[in-house]
């Protein structure tokens, strides 16, 4: 099933900032820009050699373009290019390192690529420019074996320290059943436990200062307050936190490797489980990215259904955050109230999608089925019921004096810190910076809705909670507009790459039969291209960077998750506080470990 590419690769770049940056880089580097790649997301993509990448990154970090800056290193990852077929025009490369930079003030993106070869896998670190490059580079080392010269502690981040090989290289086995059967005898347990032991010296930490001996406290990987399989090694001087080292990778499900194995269609359920509180909202950036490569335009009804369900999951996720946040600072009862609403929303979601947490209900080119008859009744009940309950929770939680004293002024950071550490979502808005993908780069028809972007001023734990509470009210507003104005029409596009195809296009004659058979057995073939698609997920910017090599599976699936960036910031914002404040800080970040380790 070959379908001609309908993607129009336009000459226009997405914003004046991007254009100015590219022109400036052209003027400075000239021939040293190896190639200017065109991708269907229209993000300017420039190739630099290893020798000039640091200079280019420094220039982008320090210069302004059309009066604006590229504030954030949104993502840093790599591609194993060795078996890729369709890379016409791109410089020769076996492993390509990709930098995704984002300008918030100018609302633009820029992508830089560096070609490397297997016998010489190293390039200069970017940690001196962006502090959040630290974990991204460690992840690339862990997954691809690419070294970053000058990195302060290039250890494995995600896989166990005893692991052999680099998982995202094409020669590494994907399936557990392809590898040696897993066993865990006592001797092996001891070896693994010894490897997980925290050694302060490796992190440049001293065991004692001039006048006191430090205490090292291990929090996790199973601890009620770390919200999943997450571990922090804490260095204490008395009760005061001197430093903290987050240790992740206890929740790595290999979702990116899975993307190279599942067909475009059958990867959808795996996206649900990335941010497992976000449900179908996780499907959205993925299916939109695939649709962009396939050139599918979805009907209006599909867009509104998608928005409605995504916003319901946003409320669900925020309610769980709200309850656990109150619980972690000592209020045990609110969560029991809040789960009542969660159950109500799950009832609605179940009546529409047939499942509670992970419906996997969006499809390439539409949704799985049309809304059932009478779908709006329960939603209207919820819209009537919930605002009063949210007001009640305000008086129970947000106006509670103890909670205020525990969280106000704790774990505060500025907008600049947020940019430096790659913080997006409510964590960024709590610092007073009004940025929301739904407003700034509307997708799936968000431009047609009326809603406000709540912000706060202090960027502390309390503000992060207050912003999310207000976001729930805005989500209710959006859902109300969806119910009132649900367009009629199809729940699936009529594009031939829509998967599975519409029923009336399946059983008519031999052509439609074959088309349907291939589409559900092999899955659709997506034309070769690259695309990056970002949405405002429950926790911040969630972005899928997909590379199609003209096959039934993705060549490379990169999932940029907000929680990964947010966790890296914990040491920077918790130094000088006490252990109990650390718990409040962790609770206020609102992460799930599946969203960190993927």
């Amino acid at each position, binding site marked *: 099933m070959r379908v001609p590419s309908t993607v129009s690769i336009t000459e226009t770049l997405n914003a004046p900032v991007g254009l100015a940056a590219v022109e400036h880089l052209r003027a400075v580097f000239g021939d040293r820009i190896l190639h200017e790649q065109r991708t269907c997301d229209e993000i300017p993509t420039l190739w630099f050699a290893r020798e000039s990448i640091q200079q280019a990154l420094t220039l982008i970090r320090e210069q302004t373009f059309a009066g604006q800056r590229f504030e954030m290193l949104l993502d840093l990852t790599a591609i194993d290019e060795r078996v890729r077929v369709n890379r016409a025009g791109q410089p020769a490369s076996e492993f390509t390192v990709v930098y995704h930079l984002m300008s918030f003030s100018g609302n633009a993106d820029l992508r830089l690529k560096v070609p490397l070869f297997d016998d010489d896998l190293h390039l200069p670190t970017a940690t001196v420019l962006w502090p959040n490059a630290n974990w991204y580079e460690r992840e690339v080392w862990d997954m691809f074996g690419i070294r970053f010269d000058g990195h302060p502690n290039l250890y494995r981040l995600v*896989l*166990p320290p005893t692991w052999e090989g680099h*998982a995202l290289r094409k020669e*590494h*086995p*994907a*399936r*557990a*059943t392809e*590898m040696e*059967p*897993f*066993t*865990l005898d006592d001797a*092996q*347990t001891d070896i*693994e*436990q010894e490897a*997980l032991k925290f050694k302060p010296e490796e992190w440049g930490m001293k065991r004692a200062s001039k006048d006191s001996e430090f205490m090292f406290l291990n929090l996790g*990987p*199973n601890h*009620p307050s770390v919200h*999943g*399989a997450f571990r922090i090694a804490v260095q204490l001087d008395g009760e005061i936190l001197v430093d903290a080292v987050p240790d992740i*990778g*206890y*929740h*790595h*499900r*290999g979702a990116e*490797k*899975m993307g190279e194995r599942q067909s475009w269609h059958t990867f959808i*359920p*795996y996206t649900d*489980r990335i941010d*497992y*509180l976000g449900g179908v909202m996780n499907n959205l950036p993925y299916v939109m990215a695939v649709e962009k490569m396939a050139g599918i335009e979805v009907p209006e009804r599909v867009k509104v259904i998608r928005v409605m369900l995504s916003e319901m999951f946003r409320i669900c996720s925020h309610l*769980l955050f709200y309850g656990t946040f109150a619980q972690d600072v000592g209020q045990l009862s609110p*969560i*029991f*109230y809040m*789960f*009542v609403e*969660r*159950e109500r929303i799950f009832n609605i979601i179940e*009546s529409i999608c*047939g499942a*509670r*947490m*992970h419906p996997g209900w969006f499809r390439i080119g539409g949704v799985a*089925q*049309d809304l*059932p*008859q*009478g*779908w709006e*009744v*329960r939603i209207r009940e919820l819209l009537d019921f919930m605002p009063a309950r949210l007001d009640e929770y305000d008086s129970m939680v947000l106006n509670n004096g103890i909670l205020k004293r525990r969280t106000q002024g704790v774990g505060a950071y500025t907008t600049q810190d947020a940019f430096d550490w790659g913080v997006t979502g409510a964590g960024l808005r709590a610092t007073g910076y009004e940025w929301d993908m739904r407003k700034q780069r509307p997708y799936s028809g968000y431009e047609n809705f009326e809603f406000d972007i709540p912000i706060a001023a202090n960027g502390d734990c309390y503000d992060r909670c207050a912003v999310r509470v207000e976001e729930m009210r805005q989500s209710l507003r959006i859902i109300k507009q969806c119910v009132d104005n649900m367009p009629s029409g199809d729940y699936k596009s009529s594009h031939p790459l829509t998967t599975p195809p519409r029923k009336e296009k399946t059983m008519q004659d031999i052509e439609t039969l074959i088309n349907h058979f291939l589409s559900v057995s092999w899955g659709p073939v997506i034309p070769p291209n690259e695309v990056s698609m970002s949405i405002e997920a429950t926790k911040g910017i969630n972005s899928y960077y997909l590379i199609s090599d003209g096959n039934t599976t993705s060549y490379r699936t990169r999932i940029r998750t907000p929680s990964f960036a947010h966790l890296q910031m914990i040491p920077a914002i918790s130094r000088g506080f006490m252990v109990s404040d650390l718990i409040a800080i962790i609770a206020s970040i609102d992460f799930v*470990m*599946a969203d960190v380790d993927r």
Partner: protein
Amino acid sequence: MNWSLESAETAAAPQRGGSEMDEFIRRNVMMVKLEDMVAWGRKNSIWPFNFGLSCCYVEMATAFTSRHDLARFGAEVIRGTPRQADMIVIAGTVFRKMAPVVKQLYDQLLEPKWVISMGSCANSGGMYDIYSVVQGVDKFLPVDVYVSGCPPRPEALLQGLLLLQESIGNQRRPLSWVINEQGIIQREENEVQRVIRGPERIAATELRSPDEV
């Protein structure tokens, strides 16, 4: 061990011919074998260890909250330390990096201890046949009850818990440690639920249409 509660108003009148003392004893004294009593107590106070790995833990937590209320079955007392818990629910994916930690936590539970494997990942690896995931927690732990689903609904966990309670209630463990071979509890092979419930499920003919709420 049979017993029931009755309210004073509706309780049956004292039987003719019996003395008042007999009736008093019937109502207030329970004759029982000690091992039955212990099995009954164990069955109705399974304290779970506060342990979660991934998505399933959210549904497990939902089972504790108001709608489902695990407290009805005496299993809501979550313990933060394995030393005080009777049961561990492996709620979520068992990762290669996490496996030694899970093993250590299981070893720290005091006997008698039980394991519920919750969700497809813990049961068999589920949809994650991938390098970093152990293909089922039973690769290194003995499992008493498997709860299916991805993630299982809270009701499914409740059913799993009731099955575990039933099996604990039928077990007669020695009251203290014994040196001979009788001290080893041989777990009975339970009949698979699929077989037990199969006929009832197959008998269902009227299924709800997905086109209606």
